[in-house]
């Protein structure tokens, strides 16, 4: 079966200008996303992990064309997304927008403080006119109960809610247009620990009931393991490894994936951690390292790694890794 979302060779460079008001010259490029390809199948959750600044959020925005990619293609259900959203008719644009939605990281800044919950959730109805005006109310209450809120919440303003409840409102707003695909950008990272599980369970529950596909973007590997079927690991704008969740967490191959996983503290005092400490920090994406971008921090790096860009190699039916020496780590 054809994947629901098919991303091919997505690239986004941001120009860096020299100082000055009248004479601004482009002096470099931020390689935010560099040749990223991924697929999301019907009804599955794909996790995208990486550290801050590695391009996860940009990838999510590019897929929804909230940022215009420098090059690359995105297909949704076989239809070219970028073409439709830039050149299509208004009807076509709205139709495509209805099928792909986004839930943002910070529910404190992604809700308009001057709108009531009713206005917030019904705004998509008014924009898309996907249901008749008379049905607004019924549909809204249906959405509220779907995300675990009460009908009386509709008349309240965002500041009256806790973080977890606000994220529920954001999810209800995204669901208002019956999307098939949602980009969830760190939906739980700004919430309290005891509330995170509620939202993660809600996201998984909605998938079971409505068959929605997710791209779950997060830096928190534990929550990615919990929620995703497949996981992609990003480093400095590139995907370095991708596999089915259990496969990736049990047999990580890329040295970066290994180091990333070893660094997560596990809540169990009996397990002594063996941390692989990475030297230094993520280099600047303006002048990314040559060859394999991870080579300056990799303990196995050789001269080959600094010269040649490694290719994505398939090592199992669903396990891909981009490392010159992957055979050593099998």
């Amino acid at each position: 079966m054809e994947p629901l979302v098919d991303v091919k060779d997505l690239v986004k460079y941001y120009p860096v200008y020299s100082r000055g008001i009248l004479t601004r010259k482009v002096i470099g490029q931020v390689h935010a996303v560099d040749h990223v390809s991924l697929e999301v199948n019907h009804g599955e959750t794909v996790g995208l992990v990486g550290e801050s600044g590695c391009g996860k959020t940009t990838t999510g925005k590019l897929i929804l064309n909230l940022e215009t990619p420098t090059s690359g293609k995105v297909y949704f259900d076989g239809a070219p997304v970028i073409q439709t959203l830039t050149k299509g008719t208004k009807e076509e644009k709205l139709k495509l927008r209805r099928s792909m939605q986004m839930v943002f990281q910070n529910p404190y800044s992604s809700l308009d403080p001057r709108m009531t919950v009713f206005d917030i959730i019904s705004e998509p109805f008014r924009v898309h006119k996907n249901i008749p005006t008379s049905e607004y109310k019924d549909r809204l209450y249906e959405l509220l109960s779907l995300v675990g809120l009460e009908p009386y919440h509709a008349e309240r303003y965002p500041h009256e809610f806790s973080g977890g409840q606000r994220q529920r409102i954001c999810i209800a707003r995204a669901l208002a247009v019956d999307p098939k695909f949602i980009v969830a950008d760190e939906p739980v990272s700004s919430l309290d620990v005891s509330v995170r599980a509620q939202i993660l369970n809600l996201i998984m529950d909605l998938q079971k009931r409505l068959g929605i596909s997710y791209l779950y973007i997060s830096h928190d590997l534990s929550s990615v393991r919990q929620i995703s079927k497949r996981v992609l690991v990003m480093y400095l704008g590139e995907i370095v490894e991708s596999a089915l969740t259990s496969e990736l967490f049990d047999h990580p191959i890329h040295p970066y994936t290994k180091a990333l996983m070893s660094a997560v503290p596990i809540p169990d005092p009996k397990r002594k951690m063996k941390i692989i400490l990475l030297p230094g920090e993520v280099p600047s994406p303006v002048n990314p390292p040559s060859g394999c971008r991870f080579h300056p921090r990799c303990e196995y790096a050789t001269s080959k790694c600094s010269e040649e860009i490694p290719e994505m190699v398939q090592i199992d039916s669903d396990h891909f890794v981009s490392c010159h020496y992957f055979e050593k780590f099998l």
Partner: protein
Amino acid sequence: MHILEVENLKTYFFTEAGIVKALDGATFNLEKGTTLGLVGESGSGKSVTSQSVLRIVPKPGKIVSGKILFEGEDILAKSENEMRNYRGKKISLIFQDPTSSLNPLFTIGSQLTEIVTQHEKMKKTEALEHVIKTLKLARLPDPEEEIYRYPHQFSGGMKQRICIARALLLNPQLLFADEPTTNLDVTIQAQILTLLKDLQREVGMTLVMITHDMGIVADMCKYVVVLYGGNVMETGMIETIFEKPHPYTEALLKAVPRLDQTKELVSIPGNIPNLIELPSGCVFHPRCRYAVDACKGNKPPLEEVEADHSIACIRWRELNGGR
């Protein structure tokens, strides 16, 4: 020997909306030379605990009652002048956000030397040498060069190293680390946690890790104090707490996804309590799956239920009796 004893500490914030009971009777002891984890969610009173011990609770907050003994001396009875010999010198603090806790207008060399010259009778050149030595201790590469730079020229991880060095400048005996890695990436977090562990071994100080991450606690700490809604839920050795936890700790552990396994997440219903109108009785009872009517009545006292393990829960014995 106990380096710090906190007894029935109450720190309230007198706001216009009402009295925020940030700490409502916290009691715990701290053994010298160990690492203690102060665990809790936002609003549980973890940061206020460190602020109270240093007596730097911001207005309109006030320490209402209780006792804080540092090396047997009553901190709350000290004058402001005497407190200067404690802050930074005997008890030090690392803040969560290194970016906002460094002054952007001064080079790190000048802001760190100022601390030394203010507290010790040292010449500027000597002080600078001491700063460089301490920065080396915090594993900042090339401190001789870096002291002439400004905070914005450093990355988050490096800034946190500078903050750690700053906290260690006056050789404190007790160091509070208030969520020192929350703003950092996991690989950088691993670097900072390893650094703190090494430093504790090298310098031999007592460390209090304030965090909401049970993983960090399990990795770093020997003793744990679990806070919820300004109350101590339990204290004890890390192994005992993970084995026979308080219902809140148990719920928290079940609600957090783990890297090494997939499990069903049991979420805790509801939200963290409103500190102005705390629930009656046990503060956790509205969200507790084991709550009975008696939990709504009186606040359960913190009782020692077994060696090195104190719990504030009336049902714990009954729940753990069968085990």
